[in-house]
């Protein structure tokens, strides 16, 4: 098994978050009535001409900068020709020889190792329309229906160098890429809506060899998990073929999520010739240094920098910093909360724990959390001030999620304030001592563990409102007298 090295390269398509399409003014909003967001340009009606959207260029440059690319001052739009009913002009406007961005790099943490994945290019292109297949699948359906609402939406294609060495690395890379594109607000990266898509190239070679083996391309990867599973399957398939001295065919393979396997779609023996040519309608795209610089200046803090800052400024463990910076909104939530409660680790525990758990259970994103950072801060302050115990606080948070009320309101309404004053506690403790002569005797004989049982009884009698630390102290004092 250890004899083979896995070589993976990824091609990612991400839809850009522009209001209008890349070459026309049609709305890009998802989910419109079929063929209601189309015009002569994006329907490819003859005579219509493309006019490039400035914001699409800006977002592509942002993506390039986030991926540490060189932004090329001059880039070229080319026509990529193929016939497919979802491609209105029978060519896609893309960038072939001279992409907008090239030579980038993304750093990954794989376990405790750092890995650098090269980015070959980031280029601008247009999205195709959508075909709905009537019937079970594309193969069995007798006809298909075309909707061009997606046609002409701005895309970036991101191509990595073949630097990825395992299926796990591929998944980690995609997670990192998604984080970067979300941070920079280049794309919303919704795989379920198709705004982020990934194809993977994989080949194997004997360890120590520098030549590449025959690669296959895997399509239909609809989630990060699918990418990892498909690549694991495919690496295994190729390894078995090679070990059996059989050949790997250069082909496109389709990932079947349900069966958990890839199968052959078409042979690539004769590589597709897209008959690229420069698009005579579009002059080369000129991007001057000042424009690039202003985009660079306005880039948000990127996840790696943010993570380091969280570790240094807030004294968070690296794990917490990693989790909190996976999404810009999550990091913002955390920081807004720290503004309220100056105890970062406490905030981190609650955000990563209770808050994310609740949101996940309700399929919500952090940015739509019903409990705002300020409100969570209000709750954590009550913990700091011993007004509620951690246990009660969890119930308070549940109520906050359910009702939208503030922590203080809930605590007051429910009478959940923690009992810390000595007079009230003393009455409860005296009652517990009177009712539990056995454990009291045990403790006094030196079985110190019995104190735990007694504190529990105090909590029970106080309906969880007693301050357990205080109760413990007072019990010891009384029993040792």
């Amino acid at each position, binding site marked *: 098994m250890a004899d083979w090295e896995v070589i993976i390269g990824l091609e990612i398509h991400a839809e850009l978050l522009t209001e209008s399409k890349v070459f026309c003014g049609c709305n890009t909003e998802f989910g419109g009535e079929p063929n209601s967001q189309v015009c*002569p340009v994006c329907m490819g*009606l003859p*005579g219509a001409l493309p006019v*490039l959207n400035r914001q699409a260029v800006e977002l592509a440059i942002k993506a390039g900068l986030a991926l540490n690319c060189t932004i090329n001052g001059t880039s070229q739009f080319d*026509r990529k020709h193929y*016939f497919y*009913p979802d491609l209105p002009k029978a060519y896609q406007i893309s960038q072939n020889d001279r992409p907008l961005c090239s030579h980038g790099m993304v750093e990954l943490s794989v376990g405790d190792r750092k890995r650098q994945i090269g980015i070959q290019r980031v280029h601008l292109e247009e999205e195709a329309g959508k075909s709905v297949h009537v019937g079970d699948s594309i193969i069995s359906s007798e006809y298909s229906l075309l909707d061009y609402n997606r046609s002409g939406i701005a895309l970036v294609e991101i191509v990595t160098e073949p630097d990825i060495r395992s299926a796990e690395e591929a998944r980690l890379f995609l997670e990192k890429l998604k984080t970067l594109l979300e941070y920079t607000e280049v794309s919303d990266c919704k795989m379920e809506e198709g705004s982020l898509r990934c194809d993977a190239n994989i080949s194997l070679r004997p360890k120590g060899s520098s030549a590449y083996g025959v690669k296959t391309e895997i399509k239909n990867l609809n989630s990060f998990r699918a990418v990892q599973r498909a690549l694991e399957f495919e690496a295994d398939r190729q390894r078995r073929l090679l070990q059996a001295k059989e050949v790997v065919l250069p082909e496109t393979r389709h990932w079947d999520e349900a069966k958990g396997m890839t199968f052959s779609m078409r042979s690539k023996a004769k590589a597709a010739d897209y008959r690229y*040519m420069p698009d*005579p309608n*579009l002059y080369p795209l000129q991007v001057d240094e000042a424009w690039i610089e202003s985009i660079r200046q306005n880039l948000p803090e990127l996840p790696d920098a943010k993570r380091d800052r969280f570790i240094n400024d807030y004294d968070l463990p690296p794990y917490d910093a990693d989790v909190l910076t996976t999404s810009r909104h999550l990091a913002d939530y955390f920081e807004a909360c720290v503004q309220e409660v100056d105890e970062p680790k406490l905030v981190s525990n609650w955000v990563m724990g209770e808050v994310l758990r609740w949101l996940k259970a309700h399929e919500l994103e952090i940015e739509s959390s019903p409990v705002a950072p300020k409100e969570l801060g209000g709750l954590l302050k009550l913990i700091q001030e011993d007004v509620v115990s951690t246990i009660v606080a969890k119930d308070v948070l549940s109520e906050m999620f359910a009702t939208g009320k503030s922590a203080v309101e809930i605590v007051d309404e429910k009478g959940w304030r923690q009992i810390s004053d000595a007079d009230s506690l003393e009455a409860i403790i005296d009652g517990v001592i009177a009712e539990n002569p056995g454990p009291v005797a045990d403790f006094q004989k030196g079985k110190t563990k019995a104190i735990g049982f007694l504190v529990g009884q105090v909590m029970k009698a106080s309906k969880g409102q007693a301050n357990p630390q205080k109760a413990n102290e007072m019990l010891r004092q009384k029993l040792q007298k």
Partner: protein
Amino acid sequence: MFSSMTISQLRTLLRAREVSAEEVVISVFDQIDKVEGDIEAYVTLCRSEALVQAKRADALLKEGNAPDLCGIPIAIKDNISTAGLKTTCASRILDDYVPPFDATVVTKLKEAGVVIVGKTNLDEFALGSSTENSQFHVTRNPWDRSRVPGGSSGGSAAAVAAGEAIAALGSDTGGSIRQPAAFCGIVGLKPTYGLVSRYGLIPAAPSLDHVGPLTRDVRDAALVLQAIAGWDGKDPTSVQKELPNYEAVLSEDITGLVVGLPKELLDNELDPEAKEAIFGVANVLESLGARVEAISLPHAEYAMASFYLIASAEISSSLACFDGVRLGKRYGEAKDTTSMFMKTRGQLGIEAKRRILVGTAILQEDNYTTYFVKAQKVRTKIREDFQQAFGRCDVILSPTTPTPAFTLGHKLDRPVIMYKSDVYTSLANLAGIPALSVPCGYTEGGLPLGMQIMGKPFDEATVLKVGHLYEQQTASERRLPQKEVKANG
């Protein structure tokens, strides 16, 4: 009658309310009723809509603030998109296509108040030099019905020459405005690339395609150009420039202006009568104060090859969209998309297929550099030739075509010979420079000859001025084709 007048003559009459736009339109349709059976210049006629537009024009004229071309009946080549009006490119694939938008030039003409007479015939998708590649019908030359009107804007040229429109719009990829203008004894202008919007022109080869006017005289060409020129945010190759008043500059004189005569375009292959005519023009221009100098365009002989290779590559790409999915007619039963594409596109005429196949071949990775890039590099050499030449002269004079109008059916089977007739005109498309064809005499047989005046980029003013002065100087020699039509018929 009104139908044989120029825009400028009609403009005066219309403004003075000596004639109504309605009367002019009726006069044009009367002429159409008389000759269209012979000429077949049109694919679609818009009689009732034209009358409605004429009445609207009359209302504006009455108010006294009518736009420039108000009430002028104009024909539009049928590869220029007209909203709500069939635009066929003379192709079966598009024979019921109704664009949901107007080409920018059409929008501008409408704003200028014109009345649209109809859509004119062309070689299918503007691919050809005779209009015989129309999939609907052949158009005949009003001077001699056994001859072609030229192409691909043959319908537009024939309509204007035969009095079936006062002026027309055409498109010019390698001479498709100027060659038919020359064959039909009228004026045709291919403007500088980027001066007139291509938005809505159904493309053949986008880096070579232009829209321009076909008119009875140079002044009319200036008037139509004024109406259609200018920056258009919908055409990314459109150029932002201050426009001169093209009509006003016509009256300036040309003393001291240098006219270049390129020796490569006056070689032995040229028809002797055509050559004679050009030297005659040179004499007239000299008599008007211009200086005539011999110049050289050393790479002119490579224009044809460079042009056809580049054009074919671009055409193969432009015509790929006709796949029978979103528009046009689907032909034949098909169980799958590949078969549907092939059967539908199989309806294209042989010239379109020829160009598509050539273009498909040279865009393949293995051929791309040796064919396509080579042709593009030679194009650069041709552009440089012009830059050098225009360092020495203000305009360049040549014949528009090597021969007068040829007979129907003459060259259809020999594409390379047919392509040769584009030698003089395709240069200006490769270089993107303005070029005007003006009638400059007649053959012994009475067929019109045309001269071509090429100018510096965006210097339409000088080109028009030279053409206009020549025209004024030789006005007494101008003939009308209608007489010939009658004489023959």
